[in-house]
């Protein structure tokens, strides 16, 4: 049954994004908010707003009972969880189901299964999606280790089968090295855990993070191509692109097809993302995990495919079969998103929950800004620092970077420190321009002092 009254159980820019998608489909919107968020932009834009509890997220946005009760009381027939908070909670999805309210996302069982690393790896293997190769069980001798390593592929990581953490991990690039290191690892494992059993796994050095966007209706799935999200700081994505220009067409097709196979194998319903490590040296990709929700970086996919992912989520949750066939989804150009956080990048990214002064948002061809800002808005200190995203779409990657730089220079926001200077410096960096980076690239780049007040102005005086 089509959704008529949608409850948005999130805040910030994604709540605004969901409201816009719902209103475009003629759906009545009910925005949840904490006591600290009564004046956020999503509350102003929604048809109704409901306070669900105190500022602390555990008492409001993370409180399943309160959110479900508020959705029920508001007469909602569906709930969109956004990202973060309760967006990957099987308990939340089950509680809504018990209350007779539609969850905009996959089933609780799918959320649970794909949220469990071991179960997700098993599902991937069963669907024929590559995972990081490793030994099936414990290895007891050096010859056995060499045999397994030959099938897993070098370089390999050798670690104790017992115990956890990084203790006793060794990396061998060749069989000679392995034959030298395995006995040491065995002796150390025996001493530390009283068990000399070993475990072997392929090492993916300096991988890229590439992910595939999929949409499914429970029986059929399609992909909306890939995103490259290798520029990360403290495991948080900073700059995201669609597509991944490092992939050749054959690899791209294989990657996207394997993502669809896994999505269909778990009867996936809604929008989801399969994350992979990509090893450029060997041109191999390995599934690492699935996110069973909409992601922060979904706009880059929307820009290059023209598919409104959030509207599609709402249609699927409302019972419509998937409207798109794979051949209808085509890529046009390249898109880049950068995350605008209320942080001072020149002061170790110190949070800066200030009050928004004069605000000038960039606009122009190929530019989109998803945000939760307005002049006079006091950013609360209780939640994530993400306040918006600038997305630039161009004919190709250099064109997208040029448009991004222009948009960032035109973005004016008084009263705050933001990560805009970081993104301007990245846009001017030769390696970023050449696209030669990986997941371990940004932190050393920052540590090396590449972000200076001069670099942050893009060299302009």
């Amino acid at each position: 049954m089509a959704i008529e009254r949608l409850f948005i159980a999130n805040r910030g820019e994604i709540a605004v994004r969901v409201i816009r998608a719902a209103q475009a489909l003629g759906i009545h919107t009910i925005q949840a908010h904490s006591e600290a968020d009564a004046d956020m932009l999503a509350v102003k834009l929604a048809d109704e707003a409901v306070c669900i509890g105190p500022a602390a997220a555990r008492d409001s946005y993370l409180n399943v009972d309160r959110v479900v009760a508020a959705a029920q009381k508001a007469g909602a027939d569906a709930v969109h969880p956004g990202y973060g908070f309760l967006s990957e909670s099987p308990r939340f999805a089950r509680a809504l189901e018990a209350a007779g309210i539609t969850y905009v996302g996959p089933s609780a069982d799918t959320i649970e299964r794909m949220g469990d690393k071991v179960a997700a790896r098993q599902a991937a293997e069963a669907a024929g999606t590559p995972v990081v190769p490793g030994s099936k069980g414990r290895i007891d001798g050096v010859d056995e280790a060499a045999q397994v390593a030959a099938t897993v592929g070098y370089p390999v990581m050798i670690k104790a089968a017992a115990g956890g953490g990084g203790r006793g991990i060794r990396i061998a690039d060749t069989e000679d090295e392995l034959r030298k290191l395995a006995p040491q690892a065995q002796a150390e494992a025996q001493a530390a855990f009283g068990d000399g059993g070993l475990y072997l796994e392929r090492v993916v050095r300096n991988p890229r993070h590439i992910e595939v966007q999929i949409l499914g209706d429970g029986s059929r799935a399609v992909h909306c191509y890939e995103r490259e999200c290798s520029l990360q700081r403290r495991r948080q994505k900073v700059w995201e692109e669609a597509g991944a220009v490092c992939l050749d067409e054959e690899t791209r097709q294989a990657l996207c097809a394997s993502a669809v196979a896994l999505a269909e194998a778990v009867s996936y319903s809604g929008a989801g993302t399969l994350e992979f490590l990509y090893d450029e040296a060997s041109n191999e990709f390995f599934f690492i995990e699935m996110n069973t929700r909409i992601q922060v970086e979904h706009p880059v996919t929307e820009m290059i495919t023209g598919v409104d992912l959030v509207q599609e989520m709402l249609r699927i949750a409302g019972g419509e079969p998937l409207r798109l066939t794979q051949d209808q989804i085509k890529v046009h150009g390249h898109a880049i998103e950068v995350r605008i956080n209320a942080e001072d990048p020149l002061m170790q990214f110190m949070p800066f929950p200030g009050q928004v002064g004069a605000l000038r948002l960039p606009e122009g061809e190929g530019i989109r800004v998803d945000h939760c800002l307005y002049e006079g808005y006091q950013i609360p200190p209780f939640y994530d620092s993400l306040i918006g995203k600038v997305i630039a779409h161009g004919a190709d990657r250099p064109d997208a970077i040029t448009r991004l730089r222009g948009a960032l220079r035109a973005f004016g926001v008084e009263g705050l420190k933001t990560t805009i200077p970081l993104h301007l410096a990245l846009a001017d960096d030769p390696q970023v321009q050449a696209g030669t980076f990986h997941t371990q690239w940004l932190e050393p780049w920052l540590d090396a002092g590449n972000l200076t007040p001069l670099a942050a102005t893009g060299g302009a005086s």
Partner: protein
Amino acid sequence: MSDVQTPLPGTFYHRPSPNDAPYKAKGDAVAVGDVIGLIEVMKTFIEVKAEAAGTFGGYVTENEAAVTAGQVLATVDA
């Protein structure tokens, strides 16, 4: 007597983690730079340190309370 103020808005914690004892108890000696509490601001934890030495006079702001920048958290007696 001097006041320990928070430089940032956020949530104030008396303890390093829920299972630990508070950083200071009334009557404890306080040296310059001693950690008095934590401020959680946008998922980041910032240590609040004493800027004057003396004897801890007690927390003025409750544990886990929402605070605004400049708010007095605790007192230190010279």
